[in-house]
């Protein structure tokens, strides 16, 4: 556990989650903090939502409760662009990191950092889900609605997930993070189907726009340690941000990444340029008055989100792919997040008909984990 690891200022535990083993583990790891028991989290959520900065207030609190809905969902991706055929596990919501561009500032109705501790239901739902798809390979992960490892020193959930998936080799399980919270991962034997992924950006953008995250050197060093321990790793350049000096910024990080990590250990790299729903802009303006990334030129994409005009996106992708190839990453599978068919074609020279093709591109052949 890093000295900068997150600890909440307030911990709330719903009565119905209190006896559960994961809740007890969390309580043990937070023994130095006072804990408030609550019946129904809705009043608390409404109270935080009333705040001047509900996002910041929510990040100070940890809510331990039950997942009443479904743990496993299809990645919603975005309408009108090529999807990734990814499945998401909603075990935790929100994260303590505070990235200016984060869509969760707008997306979630519950601003509190929330851990769902009814693991039995999670494993049952995962069993059902995976059994139904036992004859096909798939990708699944936890990093969609929160950072996969930001709370791992509190929940130690990475170990549970990796152990669970080690016996289900047709699924590639991904933990996606910006943190260096890797102690639990390093403590267990890496199965072939676990992928530990880092979201990366240029040093300048990470420093300015990703508040509370470890710097890029630290992230890459954590990736090196994890890959040296035998895990496959992945990287997500998402969002790629267009700013004065972006080419040098991304080239430097890519060179560093490729020097530290054996390309054969890289399961995939994704690219996605900055995009956000129009309503997020005013939230970013208010919460991050110093940021300039939202004042570039954007168009309204086919999905209604603001994104860079296509020539700019193509320019960004062309150069980044070139940097990756030059640095020794010619064989690393690349994919785009929320991009159009013609961008795939123009940059990667791959004809993608739909999300099934993306899955094929990134799939680990059955039985190879």
């Amino acid at each position, binding site marked *: 556990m890093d000295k900068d690891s997150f600890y909440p200022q307030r911990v709330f535990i719903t009565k119905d989650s209190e006896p559960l083993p994961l809740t007890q583990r969390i309580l043990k790891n937070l023994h130095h903090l006072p804990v408030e028991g609550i019946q129904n989290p809705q009043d608390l959520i409404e*109270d935080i*939502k*009333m*705040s*001047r900065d*509900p996002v910041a207030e929510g990040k100070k609190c940890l809510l331990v409760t039950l997942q009443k809905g479904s743990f496993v969902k299809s990645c919603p991706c975005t309408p009108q662009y090529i999807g990734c055929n990814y499945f998401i596990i909603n075990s935790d919501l929100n994260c303590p990191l505070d990235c200016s561009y984060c869509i969760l500032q707008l997306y979630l109705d519950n601003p509190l950092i929330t851990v769902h501790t009814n693991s039995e239901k999670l494993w049952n739902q995962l069993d059902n889900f995976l059994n139904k798809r036992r004859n096909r390979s798939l990708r699944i992960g936890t990093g969609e609605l929160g950072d996969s490892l930001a709370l791992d020193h509190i929940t130690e959930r990475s170990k549970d997930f990796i152990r669970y998936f080690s016996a289900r080799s047709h699924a590639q399980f991904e933990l996606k993070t910006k943190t260096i919270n890797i102690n639990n991962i390093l403590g267990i034997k890496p199965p072939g189907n676990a992928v530990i992924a880092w979201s990366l950006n240029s040093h300048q953008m990470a420093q300015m726009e990703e508040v509370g995250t470890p710097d890029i050197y630290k992230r890459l060093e954590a990736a090196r340690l994890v890959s040296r321990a035998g895990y496959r790793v992945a990287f997500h350049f998402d969002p790629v941000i267009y700013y004065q000096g972006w080419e040098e910024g991304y080239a430097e990080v890519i060179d560093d990444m490729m020097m530290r990590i054996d390309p054969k250990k890289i399961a995939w790299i994704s690219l996605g340029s900055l995009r956000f729903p129009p309503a997020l802009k005013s939230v970013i*303006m*208010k919460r991050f*008055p110093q940021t*300039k990334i939202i*004042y570039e*030129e954007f*168009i*309204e*994409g*086919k999905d209604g989100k603001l994104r860079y*005009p*296509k*020539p*700019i996106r*193509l*320019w960004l992708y062309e150069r980044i792919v070139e940097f990756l190839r030059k640095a020794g990453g010619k064989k690393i599978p690349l994919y785009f997040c929320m991009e*159009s068919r*013609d961008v795939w074609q123009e940059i990667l020279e791959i004809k993608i008909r739909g999300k099934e093709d993306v899955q094929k591109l990134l799939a680990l052949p059955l039985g190879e984990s």
Partner: protein
Amino acid sequence: MNLKQISLDDIDLKDERFRFSYHYDLRRLLLSIKKIGLVNPPVVVNRDHRFILVTGWKRICVYLELSLTPLPVFILEQDDDLRAFLFSLYENLAHRDFNLLERAEIVCRLKGFIEDEKRLVKEYLPLLGIPPTLPYLDLYVKISQLEPSWKKVIFEKKISLASVGLLIEFGASELELLVPLILPLSHNKQKQILDDLIQISRKEEISLKKILEAERIQSVLQSEKLSSLQKAERVRILLRKERHPSLSAWKESFEASLKRARLSKEVILGSSSFFENGEFSVTFSLKDKEEFSKRLARLQKLISDEDFISLFKRPPDG
């Protein structure tokens, strides 16, 4: 409540602790009181042997204008200011909607009476149709703190909440420049001009004053030939271009190429919004077989027209 006849001098009209309406048209009420007299007497409370008006500011204004006396009033037996204010609030709420400035004044008065901000937000903002959050409380308090002259403009010109929310971020000298500029425009365009100004200012780290003092904008503003609407519209377009230089340049270049290709009026070439899906469309109209043949021949000819072909090129990077 007791009904009593009092002199207007018995009311301390300088004490506006329960007042939330400042801008109104008195003509109808004036006519009504002239014709049939006062039907609903104002309500007052007694504080330190003086009467303070709780409801009935319009009626008092008419009485003053017509120099009528004595004034029938209901005396509300209520020592608590918040409750007296709520009397006025609910009395009004029962029969009318509040305008933006009234809502702002109500919020500001309530803030003076209620220490617990979250209680105020939760219990009273929904009554006013305001989302129950602290940022909205802050927004309405800020609106209530605007100079009376700006409030008058907002009321008379019916400036939208979206634009007022942006205007309150500016200082007095900036408002002097901005308000007259945006007034002739529609609500949407007012907001667009303010958004663009704020975003240019943040991106370039220059003051709004400096943006508006630029020569190309000043030459529009100082033109004697242009009406205020024309000036506002031209400044809006200049700011749009400044905010979106590449997109504007691509659009202009596309339109120029289109012009050079000299398509006839009957043939329209359209592109997807900012070339996002890379598709173009051709629409043409015709009356008969002969015209159909003409249009097709014209279109066929375009294939060897370099200007026309240049339309399909991807705009340059960066």
